[in-house]
């Protein structure tokens, strides 16, 4: 059930330059929300809503946590909101992660601002291992949260924090020693493609969360298309908002 309404911000703080951690009081939406789903949020003065992934779900408090980055004028307008301001929210939207049982050993792989939706997925498993990659030290987010939920490895492209390089490298080393029950991934397309390849080679179920420029958010407009290979081998366009944003890695056709 998708709801639309105006919900107040409990708090919003800039956790890294241009990256904001917001808590929204939306009990009806929080009650329905699943890990991997997102909210479609109206930015004041902009025509289209902005899809922002759900980072944390607190059923008891009736709140949702969103960690998002200023990517353009619309997200800049959202980031300008103060506690007590209301956001026009449509949600929860989409099909989130198909969570494997809590006993399954899980691996989450995130890149940059693709990291937030993985937090609830990691928390859903008794044992989780996280590989999170960021551009540099001042882009690292959610370190303490992931450390509490998973065995954490952080990489940065420039080596300014954690291990230098891409997060796929320690993932590959890990997979040489371990065979987790499931891999969840979200991040830039080249990263997802590399993670999907590693998972497929080893026969590990892998789910990837995609993003695309989006219109309605309810599946009607067919704006947010992603290429999916069907069981029969045909390539078709599915809707990131309604059929995703999470897809099985083996069916996603990544850009060449």
């Amino acid at each position, binding site marked *: 059930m998708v709801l639309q309404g105006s919900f107040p911000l409990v708090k919003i703080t800039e956790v890294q330059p241009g990256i904001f951690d917001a808590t929204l009081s939306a009990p009806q939406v929080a009650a329905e929300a699943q890990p991997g789903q997102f909210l479609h949020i109206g930015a004041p003065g902009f*025509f*289209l809503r902005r899809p922002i992934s759900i980072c944390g779900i607190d059923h008891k408090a009736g709140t949702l946590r969103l960690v998002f980055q200023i990517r353009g004028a619309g997200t800049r307008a959202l980031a300008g909101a103060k506690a007590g301001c209301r956001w026009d929210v449509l949600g929860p939207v989409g099909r989130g992660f198909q969570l494997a049982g809590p006993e399954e050993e899980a691996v989450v792989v995130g890149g940059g601002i693709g990291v937030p939706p993985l937090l609830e997925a990691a928390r859903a498993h008794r044992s989780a291992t996280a590989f999170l990659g960021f551009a540099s030290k001042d882009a690292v987010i959610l370190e303490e949260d992931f450390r509490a939920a998973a065995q954490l490895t952080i990489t940065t492209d420039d080596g300014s924090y954690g291990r230098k390089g891409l997060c796929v490298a320690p993932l590959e080393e890990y997979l040489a020693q371990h065979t987790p029950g499931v891999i969840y991934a979200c991040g830039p397309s080249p990263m997802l493609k590399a993670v999907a390849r590693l998972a497929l080679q080893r026969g590990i179920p892998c789910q990837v969360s995609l993003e695309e420029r*989006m219109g*309605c958010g309810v599946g009607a407009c*067919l*704006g947010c298309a992603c290429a999916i290979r069907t069981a029969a081998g045909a390539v078709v366009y599915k809707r990131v908002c309604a059929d995703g944003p999470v897809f099985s890695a083996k069916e996603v056709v990544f850009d060449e």
Partner: protein
Amino acid sequence: MNKLAVNIAGVEFKNPVIAASGCYGFGMDYRDFYPVERLGGISLKGMTYEVRQGNPPPRIAETPAGMLNSVGLQNPGVKAFKSSYLPAVSKLDTVIIANIAGHDLDSYAAIAAELEDTPIDMLELNISCPNVKEGGAAFGTSCDIAAAVTRAVRQKTTKPLMVKLSPNVTDIVSIAKAVEAEGADAISLINTLLGMRIDRKTRRPILKNNVGGLSGPAVFPVAVRMVWQVAGAVSVPVVGMGGISTWEDAVEMMMAGASAVQIGAAMFRDPYCPVKVIEGLERYAEEERLSSIREIVGAVRPW
């Protein structure tokens, strides 16, 4: 008596607010918000004879007060529509309009023939899609071809036939007259205006199709002007669309000459938009003491 009821080409609408083609899928995507039966009608996603995968993404770009799209008529094809979607669609207590598109006269005629024995209430002939290479707008930018495709479909259907015009033409009135002369029972306008956005960092167009159709409040004044021009030149009813997002917009469009309106992109921001427009029109009809909303159709008093 229902003050909002309108009749277009013999089809009774409980109110003059119709969900625009391409913005409402096959009628099932907004059911979480309100019963779709609240709407006067639904113009279904544009359909072709064969399945179409549509254009590669990105298909959407935001603009000031609007958006560009280049979906490219992604649809399952008329036969899959009939088997997979029509049974549920035809149960909806609202006017169902099939929006149809082809790549040549035969494919337009074939899809009309395929829908002839269905409970579809009305056809909307799409000769104005800006996002497909052959067909679509190519049929809507020449009087002769617009007339030919209208004639081809008219011969294959007994259903009320509405022709949806492209605004990307020099003289929309001449196209409207041409399709009226070939038996169009109604005319709807406007489809989207061809536009383009460029990412200055990558120097790439934002849309993978390079260009796409502009919709949203940005196009509203263009739509009002074209509806006014066409409604003044033809005797068949006109259905107005393009950037309507409030009941005030709907009143303005009807005063320009529209017997009903379609709402599209505004629903992407507010899924309740069409319901709010209907409620606004109800209040307006009461306050203005209208016996019927039809009284305002074409009521503009031009200077």
